[in-house]
């Protein structure tokens, strides 16, 4: 009986706080994406030959995000029937966008307006006791081209 009460309260906490934090995070992501729109991130490996000789600097951005209890519960239910795990999709989406934003912020602070060769890496760093996904780390990195002042 106690177990059920604990489970229900954890689920409720996870549901309300999780949703609140996710909404807040998305709001801030959308706001900052608009702010850093003029930093162009390109996934091509080599800049076009017309590019002027700029200074190249490696820029990175990373974030570790955890999913809430309610979503993890939903995902574990989902494994029974299979199919799309929507609750983890939004987690990964948030993490990637946040990582890219942090990379852009770094590039902007160096005075760059272009980032080439974007690579994204995702790792699940903390496996919890039951081996679930729990929290993920996303790293975005690329080469910022900083115009040299003459």
């Amino acid at each position, binding site marked *: 009986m106690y177990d059920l009460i604990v489970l229900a309260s954890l689920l409720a906490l996870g549901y309300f*706080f999780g949703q609140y934090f996710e909404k807040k995070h998305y709001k801030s992501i959308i706001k900052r994406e608009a702010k850093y729109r003029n930093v162009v991130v390109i996934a091509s490996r080599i800049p076009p030959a017309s590019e002027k000789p700029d200074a190249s600097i*490696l820029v*990175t951005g990373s974030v570790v995000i*955890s999913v809430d*209890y309610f979503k993890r519960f939903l995902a574990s239910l989902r494994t029974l029937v299979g199919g799309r795990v929507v609750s983890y999709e939004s987690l990964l989406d948030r993490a990637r966008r946040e990582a890219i934003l942090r990379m852009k912020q770094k590039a902007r602070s160096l005075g760059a307006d272009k980032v080439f060769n974007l690579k994204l890496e995702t*790792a699940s760093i903390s*496996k919890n006791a039951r081996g679930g996904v729990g*929290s993920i780390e996303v*790293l975005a990195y690329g*080469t910022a081209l900083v115009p040299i002042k003459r």
Partner: protein
Amino acid sequence: MIVSNMEIIPGKRVKDHFGLVQGSTVRTKHVGRDLMASFKNIFGGELLGYTELLHEAREEAVNRMKQQAEAVGANAVLNVRFSTSSVAQGAAELFAYGTAVVLE
């Protein structure tokens, strides 16, 4: 020391190749951070302690890679890649590798 994850540096010519250089570090978080993380596992959201930890560790790995490149006499590291793996419960290895070259 130029560090870039592109294969070339625009406007510069590669004079000499020195092959692979690498740097790695294994880090683990302390109990306090772990406790905070387990709270966050209920509420969801960013684990700031972990983000910081991994950021520091990655910087360390890059620094070690740079040191290695300096030791062989290179002045740039191109085509840098990162890799993360969890080696044990709560410990992660951060690894950076690239090609050491001499630029004109």
